[in-house]
């Protein structure tokens, strides 16, 4: 039996994978875009279809996330508009850098090194944040205070009572946009820390605004690829069925589990991502198939581990169980 030309097994695989990604997205507000495209590539989809379908899926999932955050008043439209305009310009700049580097023949090497380095850096920062919470929070507050004390007009007041220079927001968006265009990624994993630690925007509003920005850029990206028919609509449809449910489970878990308890796992996932990309590239350059397998296992294993940790930690809280082996493991 087939549904939209897909076997029941594949339908279950896509819904299950969507559930996993949705749980991560609902809990952390990020972590979706860098999992779907590699998964589709591994399954043998052409690279344009993998990227186009990945973007369409990110668009659909972020629509669901943005609706939820809007209902809770956690979206700052001023911040989203400034960031979107600045990032769009930045992305064009980043693309120009890529074309320039392609002409010199150094694009692949530099992009991969920068991608691995950034993932590792954000992973290490998150890990440090998880281990020494008080000190890091103080240091990040210092940075946000300093940024808020710079009065370059026009000044804007954001949700949560944060007053900051629109010029600085624009500058940060521009830099993140250049990095996004250069690396070919959504930029969510850079935008959210920049808003929280750099501007001092409350975490919930940073997540909500980040998701709205991802919705807009995801729609634009999906549109671009769909023009050449490079979006596998059934794949996106089944992934969304799972991710919409997962997003609710992940969001529900945030009410039960302290994010700091899981942060270590999330940092490990980012670090595993950086090792996976490095392993994949080295494997491709030297023709070592084993390294490609290591890369795939690392990406999916880490995603499965972190989403399971989120769900298990939530179940432990519901049962008031802090002594069981699994409960101690998920919250250590």
């Amino acid at each position, binding site marked *: 039996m087939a549904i939209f030309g897909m076997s029941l097994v594949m339908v279950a695989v896509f819904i299950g994978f969507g559930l996993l990604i949705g749980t991560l997205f609902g809990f952390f507000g990020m972590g979706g875009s860098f999992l779907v495209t590699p998964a589709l590539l591994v399954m043998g989809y052409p690279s344009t279809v993998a990227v186009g379908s990945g973007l369409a899926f990110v668009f*659909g999932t972020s629509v669901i996330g943005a609706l*939820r955050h809007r209902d809770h008043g956690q979206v700052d439209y001023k911040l989203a508009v400034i960031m979107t305009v600045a990032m769009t310009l930045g992305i064009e700049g980043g693309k120009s850098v890529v074309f320039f580097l392609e002409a010199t023949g150094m694009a692949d090497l530099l992009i991969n090194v920068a991608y691995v380095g950034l993932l590792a850096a954000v992973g290490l920062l998150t890990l440090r944040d998880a281990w020494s919470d008080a000190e890091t929070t103080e240091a990040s507050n210092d940075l946000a205070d300093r940024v808020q004390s710079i009065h370059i007009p026009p000044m804007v007041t954001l949700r949560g009572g944060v007053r900051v220079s629109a010029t600085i927001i624009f500058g940060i968006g521009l830099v993140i946009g250049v990095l996004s265009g250069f690396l070919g990624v959504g930029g969510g994993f850079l935008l959210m820390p920049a808003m929280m630690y750099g501007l001092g925007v409350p975490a919930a509003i940073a997540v909500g605004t980040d998701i709205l920005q991802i919705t807009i850029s995801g729609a634009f990206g999906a549109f671009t690829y769909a023009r050449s028919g490079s979006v596998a609509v059934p794949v996106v449809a089944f992934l969304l069925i799972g991710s*919409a449910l997962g997003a609710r489970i992940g969001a529900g878990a945030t009410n039960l589990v302290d994010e700091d308890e899981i942060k270590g796992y999330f940092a490990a996932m980012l670090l595993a991502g950086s090792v996976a990309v490095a392993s994949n590239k080295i494997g491709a350059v030297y023709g070592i198939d084993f390294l490609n397998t290591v890369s795939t296992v690392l990406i999916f294993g880490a995603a499965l581990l972190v989403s399971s940790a989120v769900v298990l930690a939530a179940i432990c809280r519901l049962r008031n169980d802090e002594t069981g082996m699994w409960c101690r493991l998920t919250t250590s």
Partner: protein
Amino acid sequence: MFGLESMSGSAQAVATVGLVLAEAIALYAVYGVLSSTVGSAVIDAIGGA
């Protein structure tokens, strides 16, 4: 699939994005209704209440 192939490039793109948007909104609404009707029963069952 879904009759999109017969459309021109831009029309196909608009239809694809619209389809994904419609599915996302529908899923948000359906799961919203489900979680408000059976959500607390599921949470009680998991919590062992």
